[in-house]
């Protein structure tokens, strides 16, 4: 099951160096270059948005759209002093926070019908078990306080290092470590009863 999950997650990682030419082209207003960036990050941005907005697909789609529009309108301000990914993720976090403020209400988790298809064959039973477990994890993460939720999302959805997470969230590396620790413990406490199913699922 882990291999299958890994297959789902097989995407260019955000830690890969971004092509400077693509960024430069975006700064010149090149739509094709923006399309390249969009294709590279769309699922990650959307996933972060959907997890941080309690599963609201419509709001997550709106946030994803806002992120790329803002990226294009503000990319001239990007001086290359910080990592492009850090800059982008700050944009994502800020857009999600703005959206959350606008909502001011909790939106129940949406159905998980949009999980990207894996590249290998998965039996129906395994697929079901995987979706069920993923659903539990998402629900548990949605219940975390934002300050514990954000480091988890940036670590596991975006694959950022502690230092990068600290740069995005504007806190120290030690704070990131501490919050991740508390987040992990909270997840284990909430979903500890699934550990048996978890082993079988693997």
């Amino acid at each position, binding site marked *: 099951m882990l291999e299958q999950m890994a297959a789902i997650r097989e995407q260019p990682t955000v830690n890969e160096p971004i092509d400077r030419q693509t960024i430069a082209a975006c*700064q010149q207003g090149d739509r094709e270059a923006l399309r390249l960036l969009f294709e590279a990050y769309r699922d990650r*941005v959307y996933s972060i948005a959907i997890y941080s907005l309690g599963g609201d697909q419509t709001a997550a*789609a709106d946030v994803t*759209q806002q992120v790329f529009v803002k990226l294009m309108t503000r990319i001239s301000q990007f001086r290359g002093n910080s990592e492009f990914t850090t800059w982008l993720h700050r944009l994502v976090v800020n857009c999600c926070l703005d959206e959350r403020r606008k909502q001011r209400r909790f939106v129940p988790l949406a159905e998980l019908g949009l999980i990207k298809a894996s590249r290998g064959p998965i039996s129906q039973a395994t697929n079901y078990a995987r979706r069920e477990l993923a659903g539990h*994890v998402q629900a548990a993460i949605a219940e975390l306080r934002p300050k514990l939720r954000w480091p*988890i999302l940036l670590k596991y959805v975006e694959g950022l290092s502690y230092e990068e997470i600290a740069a995005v969230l504007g806190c120290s590396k030690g704070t990131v470590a501490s919050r991740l620790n508390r987040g*992990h*413990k909270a997840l*284990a406490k909430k979903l500890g009863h*699934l550990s048996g199913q978890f082993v079988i699922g693997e």
Partner: protein
Amino acid sequence: MFSSHTARQFSAYHHEELSPEESRRVAEHLIGCTRCRAEFEEIKLGVKLAKHLPLIAAPDSIWPKIETALRQHPAGASMPVRYLKPSLAFAAGFMLLFVAGAFWLRLHRSEARPSWEVARLNGAPRINSNRINDTGKLAVGQWLETDDTSRARIDIGNVGQVEIDPNTRVRLVATQPTEHRLELARGRMSARISAPPKLFFVNTPSAVAEDLGCAYTLEVDDAGNSLLRVTLGWVALQLKDRESLVPADAACATRPGVGPGTPYFEDASELFRAALAKLDFEPNDTQWSKIPALDIVLHQARLRDTMTLWYLLSRVDENDRGRVYTRMAELVPPPNGVTRDGALRLDQEMLKRWRDRIDSDSHSLPEAMRDFLGSIRSGIRRHLNQASAK
């Protein structure tokens, strides 16, 4: 604290985000701490669960919307400037003042960050990897490190002085009116403390040294074992509920996971000290000597070593307690009101009274006289025992 639980670092440890030294510390701690191992398992489960967050495919309908939005706000176009209403301008001005005030406070506070003066004695000591010139400041959280040719002295205001020997690594953990605390990770330091007792502490990997008004040296090896040698006053060594009070002229070893051993006077016989180390840290090593280590300690003990036997009374197996009591009573008879039964059931009040008597006898006379007196007492007691047996 160096030897304290490391649970707060478990996620960083699991993600390999710690420095090699920090990782080693956590790994070593996990080997010996059942509680932390259980907690680490919890963290690992949390990590496994979090890894099951799937990526969710963004709907294809997003891109056309982005293109539409960009047509309305061409790329690179700056956002329209909005002029602030007077009330908003006032609020903005207030916020600006607030931020400036917060910045000033932060700056002021960082200037006043507690620190100790460090003076270079030899070579090139470093504070947080930066070489210091003739003097430097060691702030809370910072490491002072010496290589094999350098030495340094720390002045702790009116508390005292600490000299740092070569190849030593210490960290300032806290400095407050009620507590000054160093961490000695490895190497050797000598402290001369003039402040009232219980103000100056040193954390080591295997115990905490608490100053009771004294001068002492403390050294820690790479395995985390430490040795305390007191030259003046008293020092308490503690790990959880195990404590050893070490007087002047005495020493005490500590081991990770065990804590402080039994204090002993440094002029005790070599055989006495070796047997005591076996009793403290390797009680099951039967290969060391055909004679049990406790027998050697009891046989070699002089009047002055009753201090050591006093600790052993409560630390040896219950079956051996009677033999320790007998030898102690030969060297320093228990004061009135201290009975054999009470001592064997470890009555704290009785043990305390006996300890006072031991300290008084051990310190009131010159060494030669103390031993002479001890031998006379032993002789008289043996004679009386034999007489009563007849």
